[in-house]
C-alpha cells in the first residue's frame, strides 16, 4: 500500500482545485471602465476597428467573440442585466431579433444620417456597418459564365437538379425574405421546396464554397466574402471558382450588412453612441474594409480587395426590409428544410 503518498497527493489536489476556484471568482475581468462589445463579425476586422477607436477617443473596449446567433441568444437570455454595451453582428437578422425583443436603444439620428437609410433599421435601433452582396459561387471548369442561371428562381427548378449547393445560414434567410417581398409567399415556398428537392444542403458557407472550388459541385448560393477569404488564403489566380451575380434587379440580388446597435440596458450609452458614430466615420470604415472583403457603407472609400463596382448591382429589397427574417423561418419549416 502506498496510501500515505496517495493521500498527500489527493489532499494537495483538493487544495489546488479549491484555490483555482477562488482564484477564478476573484479574477473577474474589470469591464466597468470601458465599453463591452459582443462581437460576431470577423474578429480581425473588429479588432482593427476597436484599435482605431481607442486611439481616437481613449476609450477602452473589451471584446467578447462568438458566432452572431449565439451572441444574440445570449443577450436575449441576459435581458436587462446584459454586460454588453454594443453588439456587432455579422448579419442583420440576429441583431434585428434583439430589436424585436425590445432590447436595443435608439441610435443618435446624426449617426444614422451618415449612410443611406436602406442599410439601417427602420426604427433606428441598428446600423449597417459594412455591405456584402449575395452571389453565386461557381466552378469555372464546370460551367461557363454565359450558361449561368439568369434568375435565383431557376434554382428551385429541375433544370438545375444536382448542380448546386445551398447553406441555411448567414444570408440565406435574407435571400428567402427577398423572394417573399418580390415574388410573394407562395413562390418563395415553391422555391424552397425546389431547393430541397434539387439542391445539396451544406452545413456551412465555407464548406459549400470549398466544395465548388474542389469541383464537387458546380455552383453554390453564397455571400461574396467567402470567396475572397479563400482567394486571400490560396491566391486569387490559382482558384477554380469565381463569383456571379444575376443580371438586372433579380430577387437573388441582395445586399446584406454587418450590423451594430446599442443595448438599451447599457450603462455606458454616451461611449456606446461614440463607438457607433465612429463605425460610420471615414477612419472606422477604412479600418474595417482594410481587413475584410466587404464594401463600405460610406461613400468615397475604396477597398484594397479589388471588389467589383456596385454600380451595376441593383437589389430591390434592403436589409431594413428584412428584419429578423422570422417569416423565412416559418417558410423553411413549411418546406421541410428545417
Amino acid at each position: 500500500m502506498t496510501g500515505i503518498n496517495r493521500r498527500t497527493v489527493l489532499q494537495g489536489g483538493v487544495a489546488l482545485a479549491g484555490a483555482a476556484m477562488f482564484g477564478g471568482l476573484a479574477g473577474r475581468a474589470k469591464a466597468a471602465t470601458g465599453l463591452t462589445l459582443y462581437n460576431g463579425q470577423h474578429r480581425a476586422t473588429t479588432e482593427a476597428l476597436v484599435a482605431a477607436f481607442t486611439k481616437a477617443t481613449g476609450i477602452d473596449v473589451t471584446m467578447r467573440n462568438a458566432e452572431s446567433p449565439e451572441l444574440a441568444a445570449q443577450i436575449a437570455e441576459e435581458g436587462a442585466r446584459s454586460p454588453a454595451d454594443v453588439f456587432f453582428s455579422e448579419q442583420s437578422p440576429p441583431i434585428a431579433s434583439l430589436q424585436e425583443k425590445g432590447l436595443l436603444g435608439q441610435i443618435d439620428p446624426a449617426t444614422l444620417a451618415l449612410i443611406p437609410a436602406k442599410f439601417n433599421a427602420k426604427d433606428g435601433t441598428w446600423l449597417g456597418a459594412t455591405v456584402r452582396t449575395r452571389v453565386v459561387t461557381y466552378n469555372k471548369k464546370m460551367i461557363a459564365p454565359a450558361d449561368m442561371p439568369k434568375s435565383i428562381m431557376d434554382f428551385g427548378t429541375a433544370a438545375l437538379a444536382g448542380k448546386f449547393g445551398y447553406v441555411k445560414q448567414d444570408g440565406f434567410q435574407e435571400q428567402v425574405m427577398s423572394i417573399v417581398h418580390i415574388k410573394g409567399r407562395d413562390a418563395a415556398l415553391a422555391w424552397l421546396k425546389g431547393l430541397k428537392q434539387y439542391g445539396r444542403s451544406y452545413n456551412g458557407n465555407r464548406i459549400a464554397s470549398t466544395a465548388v472550388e474542389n469541383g464537387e459541385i458546380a455552383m453554390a448560393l453564397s455571400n461574396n466574402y467567402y470567396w475572397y477569404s479563400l482567394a486571400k488564403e490560396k491566391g486569387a489566380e490559382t482558384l477554380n471558382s469565381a463569383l456571379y451575380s444575376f443580371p438586372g434587379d433579380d430577387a437573388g440580388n441582395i445586399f446584406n450588412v454587418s450590423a451594430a446597435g446599442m443595448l438599451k440596458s447599457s450603462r455606458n450609452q454616451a461611449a456606446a453612441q461614440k463607438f457607433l458614430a465612429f463605425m460610420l466615420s471615414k477612419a472606422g470604415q477604412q479600418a474595417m474594409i482594410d481587413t475584410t472583403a466587404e464594401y463600405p457603407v460610406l461613400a468615397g472609400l475604396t477597398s484594397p480587395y479589388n471588389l467589383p463596382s456596385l454600380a451595376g448591382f441593383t437589389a430591390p429589397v434592403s436589409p431594413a426590409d428584412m428584419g429578423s427574417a422570422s417569416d423565412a423561418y416559418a417558410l423553411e419549416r413549411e418546406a421541410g428544410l428545417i
Partner: protein
Amino acid sequence: MTAWARRRLALPPAWLVLASIVPFALVALPILYVMVQGFEAGISGILENLVRPYTLNLLLNTLTIAVSVTILASLIAVAAAWGTERCDLPGRRWWRLTVALPLAIPAYVSSFAWSSLGPWFQEIQGAILILTFYSVPLVYLPVVAALRSLDPNFEDVARSLGHSRWRTFRRVVLPQIAPALGGSALLVAAHMLAEFGALSFLRVETFTTAIFDQYTAEFNNQAAALLSGVLMLICLPVAFAEARLRNRRRVARIARGSARAIVPIALGRLTPFVMLGFVALTILSFGVPAVTLCFWVVEGHSAGQGLERVLPALGNSIGYALPGAALTTIAAIPLVIATTHFRGRFAMLCDRLPYIVHGLPGIVVALAAVAAAIGFLPAVYQTTGLVLLVYIVLFLPLAQSSVRASAELVPRELSDVARSLGKSPFQAFWLTTLPNLLPGIGAALALTALQLMRELTATLLLAPAGVVTLATEFWNYTSDRAYGAAAPFAAMLVLISGIPVYVFTLRTLRLNDAR
C-alpha cells in the same frame, strides 16, 4: 476472481448524499432550462414542432450515426485489444500507444481533414467513418485494461476442456470484459448524440446541427429547447443501459489472483496481415489529419499570423483545463461511490443524470448557465469560476466512467473494516476507498483535461472577456478560412493533448496493476 453473488447494499452515508447534491444540482440546471423553455411552447407547439417528417429524418440520422459508430468502434477496438494483449504481435508496446494516439486529435480537426478528400466523406457514411476512427481509442483502452486484469486460468481451463479459441473468447473472455466494453461503448454513443464540431464540416443533419440551425434561423430558443428535449430522451436509455450492464456482476477482489504471464497466441503467417491492419488503422485515424495540418502550413498564405498568441492561448488552455478537470473529477467521486458501494434511488439518479445531459449540445448548456447566473448570481457571471462549473456539467460522465473503473475493483469490505475500527463513514472513505481510487482518478483527470482543452462554446460565451485558448483561436482562424494561421494552434492542441493521452493510456492500462 469469483463472480460473487450480489450482496445487499447499505444506503449511502449522509456526507456522501450531501456531496452528491452539488453535482446533481449543477446537472439538473440545463434539464430544468430545457423543460421550462419547451413548456413555454405549449402542448400544441410541441406537437407542431416535433411531429413532422423533418424530425423523423433527424432522428434516423442521429441514431444511425450513434449506433453504427458505437458498433464499429467497439469491433475495431476489441480486435485491436485482442491483437496487442493476446497475440505475439511484434512491437505490442508500440502498437498500444499508436492505437491510443488519435485521442490527441480533436474530432473537428480530423473531420475537416477527411471532408476535404471528397464528397463521399461528407455524407453519412463519411461521418460514420470519421467518428468511428475518432472513437476507437475510447473503447480500446478500457478493454485492454480489462483484458490485462483477467485471470488467465479461466481461459486455460476452457481450452483444456476442448473449447476452441473463438468459443473460449465468446464464453469466457467476452463476459468478463463486458462491463468495460459496454461502459465505454455507451459513453461513445452519448458522445455521438451530442457531436457537433465534426458534423459542421459535413453534409449530415442530426439533432445537434438542427438545434444550431434553429438558433441561427429563428432566434427563438423554444424550438431549439424542444429538439434538445428529444435528444435527452434518446440519451435516457443509453444512460440506464450503461448502469444495467455494470450492475450485473461484481468484479472487486483483494488479491491479484495468480498473476501469471499469458502465453501469447502465435500468429505465424498471419503476422504481416495483422501488422498491416494496425498500420492502416494508424494512417486512417492519425496520419490523414496530421498530414492535412502540415499541408495547411505549406499552402496557406496566412501561415505565421497570430503566432504571438500561441503561448498565451496555450497558457489559458492549460489554466482552464487543469482546474476544470480537477473539479469535474472531485464532483464525480461521490456520484460513483454512492452507486458502486451503496444503493438508493436518489444515488442512482444522481449518477445517471450527467449522462443524459452529456448528450446536450454545448450551446444549450451554456445558455442555461447564462439564465441561471444572470437570474440568481449575477456576481459570478462571466467569471472563470462559472466556466469551471459549466465544464463540470459538460464533462462529468467522462470522469465518472474512469473513476468507476477503479471503484468497482475496490472491495466495500475495506471501508467496513475501517468503520468497525471506529472510523466515521467519511474517515473510512478517506482512509481506505479514496487511496485505492487513485489510478481511476488519474485517468479521469487526464481524459477530462483532454476534452476541456477543446471546449469552445461555453468558453466563448462565459469566460471573462478577452480570454483566448487554443480552441478559440483555431475556431477564429478557420472561420476566416485562414487555415495556415489556424494550423499552429491545432498542432499545439494536438501536441499538448499528447500529455493527457499518454497519462490516460498508462493510467488505464495499469488500472489493475497499480494496487
